[in-house]
């Protein structure tokens, strides 16, 4: 057990810090297009947009530990993401690298790295939210085209994306995960209709996507027919370093502490109330546990262990923290907490972030069944 960085790691951290000093001004705005353009240009030059990708695919072949150091330094400095096409870089790129033909790589990877692509991913379907094995969106091969008919739901950013990476059923008779195939489909294909799903605050990031006899050239199939599940699992296994969640909660805690210090509650600063202080301390314990859980998981991965269900731990911790921290912010605000404002919006909108990774009950099942070996539902 040793939390000091090795000389190589220290050198890499210095390189990252120099990069950030140079390309990330203190006053940089994540909404400023000029800044973002120069930020992405600098990253491209470093080949850091596909940081973990092989060099022949345009990446920097960064190790897990380097990824961790890069992400941590970026988080500390509140840097914008490495690229603009989050879904494409996270899901589509790794799947292409593992299973794409040379032609497919040449066709799609450069756009991903250039930041000119915008992908969404189609996994969930109505009535089969968390149960991918039973997906029903159908694709039938006719000549050199698939005809896709069916629906996808909870498709993040589908209303803005140019392409969708989607799982379809090509063999309705095959059991469970067999018979699923992966297709890459332009969102402007005839027969695709996108219906936004506004969330409870009226904001749209989710969509329902309808496919009516959509033609997809067989060249757009990623991997073999019936291997869609394997292709996607390969992308999953190419694990990202999950530092963002604990850093995000840690920032959230800093802001909450600042609120407690400054907001008056019952005639005193909220932080004068030991109930408030102790709740903040308990948040700190769980957030720091999340960060160190991630580190332990990373260490195990560096030692060669397979990705495990331990990531469910932090998802559960995060869910409870989202709820409890947003409640405390509203309690501190008191009656003013029911007027509109940023804390109030956050207190409504966290629900979506929890659902994203599967409901807390699904996470509890994963821990109970896969880790503790308890009987399945």
């Amino acid at each position, binding site marked *: 057990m040793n939390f000091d960085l090795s000389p190589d790691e220290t050198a890499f951290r210095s390189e990252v810090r120099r990069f950030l000093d140079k390309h990330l001004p203190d006053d940089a705005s994540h909404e400023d297009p000029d800044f973002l353009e120069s930020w992405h240009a600098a990253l491209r030059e470093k080949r850091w947009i596909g940081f973990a990708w092989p060099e022949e695919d345009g990446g920097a072949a960064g190790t897990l530990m380097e990824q961790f150091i890069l992400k941590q330094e970026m988080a500390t400095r509140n840097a914008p993401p490495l690229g603009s096409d989050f879904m494409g870089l996270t899901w589509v790129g790794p799947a292409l690298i593992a299973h794409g033909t040379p032609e497919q790589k040449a066709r799609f990877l450069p756009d991903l790295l250039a930041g000119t692509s915008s992908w969404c991913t189609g996994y969930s379907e109505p009535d089969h939210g968390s149960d991918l094995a039973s997906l029903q969106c159908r694709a039938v091969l006719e000549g050199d085209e698939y005809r896709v008919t069916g629906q996808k739901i909870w498709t993040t950013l589908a209303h803005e994306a140019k392409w969708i990476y989607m799982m379809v059923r090509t063999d309705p008779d095959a059991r469970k995960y067999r018979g699923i195939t992966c297709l890459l489909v332009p969102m402007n294909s005839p027969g695709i209709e996108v219906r936004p799903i506004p969330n*409870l605050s009226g904001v749209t990031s*989710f969509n329902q996507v309808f496919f009516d006899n959509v033609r997809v050239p067989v060249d757009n199939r990623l991997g073999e027919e019936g291997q869609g599940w394997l292709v996607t699992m390969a992308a999953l296994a190419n694990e990202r370093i999950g530092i963002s969640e604990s850093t995000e909660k840690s920032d959230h805690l800093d802001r909450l502490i600042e609120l407690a210090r400054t907001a008056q509650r019952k*005639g005193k600063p909220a932080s004068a109330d030991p109930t408030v202080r102790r709740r903040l301390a308990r948040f700190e314990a769980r957030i720091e546990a999340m960060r160190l859980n991630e580190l332990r998981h990373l260490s195990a991965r560096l030692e060669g262990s397979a990705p495990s269900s331990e990531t469910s731990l932090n998802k559960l911790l995060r869910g409870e923290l989202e709820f409890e921290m947003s409640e405390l912010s509203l309690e501190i605000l008191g*009656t*003013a907490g029911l007027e509109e404002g940023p804390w109030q919006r956050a207190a*409504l909108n966290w629900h979506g972030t929890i659902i994203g990774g599967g409901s807390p009950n699904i996470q509890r099942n994963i821990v109970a069944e896969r880790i503790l070996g308890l009987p399945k539902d």
Partner: protein
Amino acid sequence: MNFGFTEEQQFLRDSVRKFLDERASIPHVRNWIESDPGMSLEFWRELAELGWLGLTIPETHGGAGLGWVELTVLFEETGRSLLPSPLLSTTLASTAILDHGTPDQRSRWLPSLADGSRVGSIAILEPSDHLVPSALQARGEADGSHWRIHGEKSFICDIDRADFFVTAFRTGENDEEISLAIVDRGAPGVHTEKVPCLDSTKSMGRLKLDGVQIAPEAMLGAPHQAWPAVERLMDQGAVAATAEAVGSAEAVLAITVQYAKDRVQFGQPIGHFQGVKHPLAEMHVDIESIKSLLYYAAWSLEGSPAETPRYSSLAKLYASDAFTRIGVDCVQLHGAVGYTMEYDAQLYLKRSKWFRPMFGDADHHADRLAALRGLR
């Protein structure tokens, strides 16, 4: 001794429910809150005709002459429908005039409140949000037989709908020298501002008072001695809001129970899983427990006023904690759809956020209960 509702009370509940189910279902409510003024004025006139606006106003003043148990029934049902209306505000205003007004004041104000031609609200809290005498900084200066009020009032329900505000202000140097008066919305120096509220079925805002002149006939009760009246008014508000919360919580529980029966996942209705059914069972336990405390608090308002502070605090404390949890859990148990605008659970979640701080949050009432036990 009897903890049940009478046949008349049950009949009142049934007829309120039937009317709201027909005329103010959730699709109606969604239409109203998406358009200006956020409620139906036509529906409001019908409520007046049905006598709901004057439920506790004496018959001599055009009301039904009933009591707080009947009001509780009414608010449970309007809460179940998330009815957007100034019913709670105008009821508290009429209660203040009924409890503390002179015969002349009652005759002047109550009939117009009962028939809906006037709407009232209350203006107690200030930006500090602290429910103690010292936190009321709006100040009345004596001006002959009149008072002139300078100050600011916050967190006022139905600011845009009320014709007048029962307002608390300081008239002396000592903390508890508080007075109550009726402030006309149109009086010189009155400035109202609507503030967007997280729960669109409720309307909120603030009031600025710039040397507003108060005539002697607008003063409610004796000057300087209104703090107990303010406390009672907040207790009445806590009871009415808790009644609404009980109805809302029952409604969102029913929606979620139905969803748990209908929604199939992994080959089972999700309500089969203890991870779903047990939280729903806990919600039922909490709602029934809040009802027990609420009904006793409502009865005490007329039947045993000395017990009202304790029981209104017990009810509001329990409900503030529980409804918060119920609102969140019901959205969560719906999975992803719970988070969408389309499903109704989120409307109740927003109401639970509105409810929690109103008329004192959980900590306020817990501290008050501890103080009643001599702990401080």
